[in-house]
């Protein structure tokens, strides 16, 4: 598969989850494990452009796919506009849910030109945060969406 633009290959126990392959084999530890029920979304990555929960898919299922993690969304050493928005709007406290929130935010921005607060909150159904009460996360995604629209 390709991960953040680079071709990678490995021989794996077929039970290896994508999240563990990313974290332990590739040392891309920005993708987090936050639950054991597929509910929290801290493991969210993009597969062929679509956000998925990397805890709920086997790495071997993605043979030939293009995977993007939080480490791969910036370009030329600069923050992705969505990342910059989270920084500007203080969209985090402990930061554990944040990579998943950013990955989801990027996808929300792709599908909604000017999402209302209600739409953003609904779209975040699969991303849990225990610290912030979501207030600044929603603000960050709104700001990041505007920034991505250019």
């Amino acid at each position, binding site marked *: 598969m390709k991960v953040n633009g680079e071709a990678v290959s490995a021989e794996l126990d077929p039970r290896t989850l994508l999240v563990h392959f990313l974290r332990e084999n590739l040392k891309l530890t920005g993708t987090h494990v936050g639950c054991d*029920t597929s*509910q929290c979304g801290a493991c969210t990555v993009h597969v062929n452009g679509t956000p998925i929960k990397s805890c709920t898919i086997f790495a071997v299922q993605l043979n030939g796919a293009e995977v993007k993690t939080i480490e791969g969304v910036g370009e030329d050493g600069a923050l992705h506009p969505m990342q910059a928005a989270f920084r500007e709007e203080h969209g985090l406290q402990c930061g554990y849910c944040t990579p998943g929130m950013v990955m989801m935010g990027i996808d929300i921005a792709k599908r909604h030109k000017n999402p209302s*607060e*209600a739409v*953003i*909150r*609904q779209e*975040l*159904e699969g*991303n*849990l*945060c225990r610290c912030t*009460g*979501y*207030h600044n*996360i*929603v603000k960050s995604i709104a700001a990041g969406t505007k920034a991505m629209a250019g």
Partner: protein
Amino acid sequence: MDYAMPRAGDIPALGVGTVVTAAPSNPLGIKGAGESGTIGAPACVSNGVIDALWHLGVRQITQPMTPKKIWRAIHEAQAQ
């Protein structure tokens, strides 16, 4: 999960206001508060649950407010 985790759609946008009464004991007028503001939250939630069940005759509930405990509180109140 054993309980409903609040998601982004369950919580409204939060407004923060301040009412300032400066403490007379120091030049900055401040006191250390730590996280003492969280003390009221469990009581608030318990009162909310009792309010929601009031019309069923429930007058008291203790934590943890598990589904089993709510069920029992409702049925004991109805039995009276």
